[in-house]
């Protein structure tokens, strides 16, 4: 009994693992069964055998290309969101007046929701919106610049809704890093950039990986804005539109499930790569020693 406990302790198993149970039970009961049902459904298409839905997806270029379209939209958006948050959050670590206001304002877009964002983009960036009006009246452009109902509209909406997420997370992760480490690096002759590059960034990297994954997932499953400010039959025909189409327009649930499963798979590949890379990083405490 005790020997077993010792052996288990060495492998890291003890009563603390019980803390996992509520979450695990929850996911098992409410997710796994319905999910397997959905996956099962994707293998029971109306025609074409077990893999019919998948075959249809991959043989129909109009469906297949949605993978590329989605990635082209979500990868740059997620990347931009994360990368832009880092320098901004980094600048905002110290104390300065108005910091709280600035942070709050940066976080406000979280509350916008897709609809207001979409409406706002259509109004603001539209052909007669304030933006184009300003360009025209200042003579910066002689015809309205088209920024809505195409790739850029969706991209902007992903940035507006995704950036605050990323910023909030990055700022929080950043503030968990012991500031005395940067000081130590400074006394060792590291300038601002090197301190950031060699000390802060590596300690922040695991958080960045997670942030990237979360914003990527949000961007990848973009749906309403792809329809509202995008070009849903062309440049912004993302996978979720294809899935939605199959499920709610054609009521072809097997195909819809297949598309959704493929969406999950593509996301999993990207996230797996990122998290795999994260596993190679240092992920422990970010304290520098005592105190």
């Amino acid at each position: 009994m005790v020997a077993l406990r010792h052996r288990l302790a060495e492998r890291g198993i003890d009563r603390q693992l019980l803390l996992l149970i509520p979450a695990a039970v929850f996911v098992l009961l409410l997710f796994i069964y319905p999910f397997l049902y959905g996956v099962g459904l994707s293998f029971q298409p109306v025609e074409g055998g077990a893999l019919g839905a998948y075959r249809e997806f991959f043989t129909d270029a109009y469906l297949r290309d949605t993978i590329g379209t989605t990635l082209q939209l979500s990868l740059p958006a997620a990347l931009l969101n994360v990368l832009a948050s880092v320098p901004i959050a980094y600048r905002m670590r110290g104390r300065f007046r108005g910091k709280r206001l600035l942070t709050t304002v940066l976080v406000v877009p979280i509350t916008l929701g897709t609809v207001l964002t979409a409406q706002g983009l259509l109004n603001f960036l539209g052909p007669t919106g304030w933006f184009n009006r300003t360009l025209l009246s200042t003579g910066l452009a002689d015809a309205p610049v088209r920024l809505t109902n195409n790739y850029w509209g969706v991209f902007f909406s992903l940035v507006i809704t995704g950036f605050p997420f990323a910023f909030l997370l990055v700022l929080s992760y950043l503030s968990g890093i012991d500031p005395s480490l940067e000081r130590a690096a400074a006394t060792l002759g590291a300038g601002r950039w090197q301190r950031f590059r060699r000390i802060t960034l590596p300690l922040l990297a695991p958080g960045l990986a997670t942030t990237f994954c979360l914003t990527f997932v949000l961007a990848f499953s973009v749906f309403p804005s792809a329809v509202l400010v995008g070009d849903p039959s062309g440049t912004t025909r993302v996978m979720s539109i294809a899935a939605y189409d199959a499920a709610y327009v054609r009521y072809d649930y097997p195909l819809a499930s297949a598309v959704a499963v493929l969406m999950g798979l593509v996301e999993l590949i990207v996230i797996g790569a990122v998290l795999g890379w994260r596993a190679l990083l240092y992920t422990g405490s970010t304290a520098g020693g005592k105190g």
Partner: protein
Amino acid sequence: MAARRSIVATPAAWLVWGVVAAFFVMLAGVIGSVVVSSVGTQWFDTWLPTGWTTRWYAQSWDEFTLLPVLIVTLEVSALVVGISVLIGVPAAYVLARRSFPGRRLLYLLFLLPILMPPITYGIPLATVLYKYGFAGNLSGVVLANLVPSVPFVILTMTPFIEQIDPAVERAARMCGANTRQVFVRILTPLLVPGILAASILVLVRTVGMFELTFLTAGPDSQTLVVALYYSMSAAGIRAQQSIDAMAVIYTSMMLVLLVLALRFVNPTQLVARVRDEGD
């Protein structure tokens, strides 16, 4: 107060603040144009609407009986945020701190609900919930929304927990704190920035989650997003301004929630670091 070294802004700093400023301009434009439109009578090819009115608000308020909807939304989001933090943080803790066989598999399991679009599992999930009498009322909406929220909390919190020095927990145990007390008294305060961030994300997701909410909601457990979605994408004629008004209502509600959240949790915690020293 401490004398500050003169802040000579480097080009990099200018760039960063420039980008922030551009973002703010964009944000102001986006929000402003919607708000202006929602209180305008007619707005054609001009800088500002020709007249002002509040009838779009009155109209959407009546059409969707928004008061009960708002209350339901508040209840649902509070419950979802609370429960998912309660369930998710302990799980994240174990996943961040411990290594045990099957950890990676479990992590993957927790990741799936975030990755999978609700289309895959929404209808069977609703069926299950209806079968056991959970759907069609508030509990169903809450349960369904928890499915992606709990994993979301887990994923967000893991790096936060990794950052905390384990010695602090050990010290608490030596003071006689059991696991629950370590959580409540030590980890939670240290994790406040993380929990706050995660809660806000979950809140936004929940308030904005149409599919699962719609599939499991009963007639008196609709949330705001269902109304909003309707005004946005339903058939029929709807003035742009009334959509704008709905969007503004939605946003104000989120803003109120955010402010409330920041009220109950010390707002400086969101940005201040616990270990803040000197300057």
